[in-house]
């Protein structure tokens, strides 16, 4: 069964350092999402791609966060510089169409010290 892949699974970094996360969606899924989930809360959408285009990044802190999906397949989310408040689970999801069911990857647990 096809799955969304994410790496790394865990990342510990010091504040002010740069960190990057990678996501490979299910093959053929045009829509890709990045979420941030703080413990005890629901996922918060950071950015949504349709193919290689950003369709929603209204909740992305653009002074430190960036995301790209250059060829409309895999995607990278970067934080520079990382802050203590960025400690969270970063989830990637993909769907075959907008508003359709989303398939999530295992997430990257980020700890900023």
């Amino acid at each position, binding site marked *: 069964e096809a799955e969304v892949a994410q790496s790394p699974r865990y990342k510990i970094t010091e504040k002010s350092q740069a960190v990057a996360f990678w996501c490979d969606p299910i093959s053929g899924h045009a829509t890709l999402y990045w979420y941030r989930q703080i413990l005890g809360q629901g996922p918060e959408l950071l950015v949504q791609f349709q193919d290689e285009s950003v369709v*929603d990044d209204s909740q992305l802190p653009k002074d430190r966060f960036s995301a790209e999906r250059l060829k409309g397949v895999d995607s990278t989310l970067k934080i520079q510089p990382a802050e203590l408040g960025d400690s969270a689970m970063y989830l990637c999801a993909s769907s075959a169409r907008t*508003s359709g069911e989303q398939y*999530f990857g295992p997430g990257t647990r980020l700890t900023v010290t």
Partner: protein
Amino acid sequence: SQKIEQNSEALNIQEGKTATLTCNYTNYSPAYLQWYRQDPGRGPVFLLLIRENEKEKRKERLKVTFDTTLKQSLFHITASQPADSATYLCALSTNTGNQFYFGTGTSLTVIP
């Protein structure tokens, strides 16, 4: 302001009973409402999707209702089992699919 509220307290029920979880929303006009299950340390898993013009959807032991007048969805698990213990999230999306919002989730524990 926009808000999605789920049962704030954890829900504990006896095995075999029906679990009912609530999702209330304000200041949204969702075209779709979805329910997901999330186990600790893992990504959410899709369960059911219901459209604004649908009143009810079923899948095996799961049932979802959607009342756009009350601005509420109810999620039922019948004949609950300990393996159903998890956090359940509701999520709303608009017609365009360009806005997608999750609730805070409800933790369910099914006691053997």
